[in-house]
């Protein structure tokens, strides 16, 4: 099997399994006052410190959550509610249309149920949001509750200059949230240096377990809770701490950050081979997102493990199925809950037509990827695209 879907999830690191297994063998609620509780508390707080150090945050800025979706919901809704409560004029949310659905659906829920007004940011063809576009959308900022721009796009891998965007938002007194789920471990993510007010991250994209993540939240940021009942996490998030998962998150994040520079270079090398090789076999294949050597703020402008290609005349779901049958696992853009393929909202947001959006595949590399994985794809991609094109021809 050739796994080229690391952006969906990536294999759990052996050291994570070991650390979690050790913790799972112990009793103790981190909120209990006795010795077992104190031991659990100690493990959780060590993990908090470790995660904070890996991401340039203070331990008190780390709120453990149930994953990226919860962190995005908490940041967008919580900041919106708190800021509007402080000043009822703040009803506007400024957001990019290429965000993950955890952000988009939260924003749309607020628009439908809480009277929020949405201002959609214009996005460059590469998928990037520029400080100028953000400044235009914010205006004088007095009516804006929150802005949200992802650090790196999960589909086409575009990295935005989050520090510049945070400075732009702060110029008019608006807090910026960023979804950095895909960025952590692939590009340099320093919460403190970036200036953002809230940052979403999750464990399972880094070799940690599913179901645990964090929201990094500045101490001065007011955020209304989604979950009530105990106030374990700074009174912003309630629920018994899942200590084993939190330990796993911290081990994974530390490993991802420590090995980042070397791994990013390896991934970029494999990714470039993959893209060049695919285009060599399918000359009219089109790379979506930034150029492979794109640069933003002296770092990569595209996630090193991300390749996203359109194959004109072929449907993404036919390509996916044919590759799956040949043992190669990748992804088409977004799928709704019923699994019906829809044109990727990200590609539509960057100006692709629906046909191009429907004909695309994402290949994403990660810590277990090898040259053999790329070779396996290159062995079959030509005939697969040809067959998918024939299957697509009869469609109206």
């Amino acid at each position, binding site marked *: 099997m050739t796994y080229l879907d690391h952006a969906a999830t990536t294999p759990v690191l052996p050291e994570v399994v070991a650390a979690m297994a050790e913790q799972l063998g112990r009793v103790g609620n981190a909120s209990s006052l006795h010795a077992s509780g104190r031991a659990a508390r100690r493990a959780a707080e060590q993990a908090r410190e470790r995660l904070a150090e890996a991401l340039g945050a203070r331990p008190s800025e780390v709120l453990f959550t149930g994953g990226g979706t919860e962190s995005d919901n908490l940041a967008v809704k919580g900041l919106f509610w708190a800021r509007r409560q402080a000043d009822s004029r703040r009803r506007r949310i400024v957001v990019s249309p290429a965000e993950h659905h955890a952000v988009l659906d939260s924003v749309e829920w607020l628009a439908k149920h809480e009277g929020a007004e949405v201002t959609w940011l214009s996005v460059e063809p590469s998928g990037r949001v520029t400080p100028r576009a953000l400044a235009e959308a914010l205006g004088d900022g007095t009516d804006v509750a929150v802005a949200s721009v992802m650090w790196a796009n999960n589909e086409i891998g575009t990295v935005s200059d989050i520090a510049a965007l945070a400075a732009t938002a702060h110029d008019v007194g608006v807090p910026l949230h960023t979804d950095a789920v895909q960025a952590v471990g692939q590009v340099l993510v320093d919460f403190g240096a970036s200036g953002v007010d809230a940052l979403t991250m999750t464990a399972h994209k880094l070799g940690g377990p599913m179901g645990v993540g964090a929201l990094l939240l500045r101490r001065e940021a007011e955020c209304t809770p989604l979950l009530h009942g105990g106030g374990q996490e700074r009174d912003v998030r309630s629920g018994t701490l899942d200590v084993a998962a939190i330990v796993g998150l911290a081990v994974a994040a530390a490993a991802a950050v420590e090995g980042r520079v070397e791994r990013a270079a390896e991934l970029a090398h494999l990714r470039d081979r993959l893209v060049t090789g695919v285009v060599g076999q399918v000359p009219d294949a089109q790379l979506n997102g930034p150029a492979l050597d794109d640069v933003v703020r002296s770092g990569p402008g595209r996630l090193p493990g991300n390749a996203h290609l359109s194959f004109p005349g072929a449907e993404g779901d036919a390509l996916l199925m044919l590759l799956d049958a040949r043992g190669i696992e990748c992804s088409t853009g977004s799928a709704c809950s019923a699994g019906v393929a829809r044109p990727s909202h990200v590609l539509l947001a960057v100006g692709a037509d629906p046909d191009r959006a429907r004909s695309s595949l994402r290949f994403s590399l990660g810590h277990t990827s090898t040259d053999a994985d790329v070779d396996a794809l290159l062995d079959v991609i030509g005939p697969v695209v040809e067959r*998918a094109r024939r*299957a697509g021809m*009869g469609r109206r």
Partner: protein
Amino acid sequence: MRVLAAMSGGVDSAVAAALAVDAGHDVTGVHLALSQDRQALRSGSRGCCSVEDSHDARRVADELGIPFYVWDMADRFTEDVVDDFVAEYAAGRTPNPCLRCNEKIKFSAVLDRARALGFDAVVTGHHARLADGELRRSVDAAKDQSYVLGVLTADQLAAAVFPLGGMTKDRVREIAAERGFAVATKADSHDICFIPDGDTRGFLARRLGSRPGPVVDAATGATVGAHEGTYGFTVGQRRGLGVSTGDQEPRYVLGIEPVTRTVTIGTAELAGVDEITTAGATWTSAAPALPLRAQVQLRAHGEPVPCEVVAGADGGLVIALDAVQRGVAAGQSAVLYEPDAVRGDRVLGQAAIRATRRRPAAVGR
């Protein structure tokens, strides 16, 4: 063989897929998303294209360890089946959407795509026997679906597999239960999948709006009532006519004239027909020599009627029935069978009914 199993989420297609796996085929499951409203949840026993049904199908595929995909056929289905259904009613005819779906979607759009993607055949959970290119009734007469498959051609049948035709529905449920499929006890689907509440008249009224017209008694020519749309009527219908005719004799819908929106009704003796003229026929194998003695079934779950088939105009047929039938509606398919008590009646072909009449010589017979 590499086969594609169409999995609706019901018990029949689940067992059909399982039997295809048992038979040693390389099976891939596909759920067809046909409804434009994907969030529709199953209501009562009906539906085959809700999100919940797709999850049921995926659940079975995962148990079988086969790949599973959802194919979005909603646009094709809307155009070729739903819009056709509405247009046929608007034209005063009574369509069969399941037959249309088999003809245009399952064994056309899906089969073409499957073949292009490298599959050899499509497996479905239809209750019909298919061997050596010969399509026959299921052993379970009550569940037989050969009527709605009668439109398939030899080429389509060559790439179709129906594993359930040789067993009863009870046996299908037993197999599902033995395998622990949660759908073993799932209720059968009924009626029309895109009208989950079963209210066909209401569905058509929403699509076609109010199109009032007269209800005329054939015997007197008198207008005896009014209606809000001819689509609320089917030839042979007796109930819900909303007329009073002054006598106790039941009336039946005899005909629907879409231009003047006239619904003609009459007594039982006028409602019978024994000659059917059809549009062009399709055959499940080489076209048979005409004239031909056969049996004809005139609607889903209808009784077969012995008949004589001769060639009509424009490739159509003229079918002379041995016995007078009521409720023979234009738009329905006349499916021809060669009776065979041992191997199951064999489907010869079908043609859409265009017109019916009572043969002059037969009046008063």
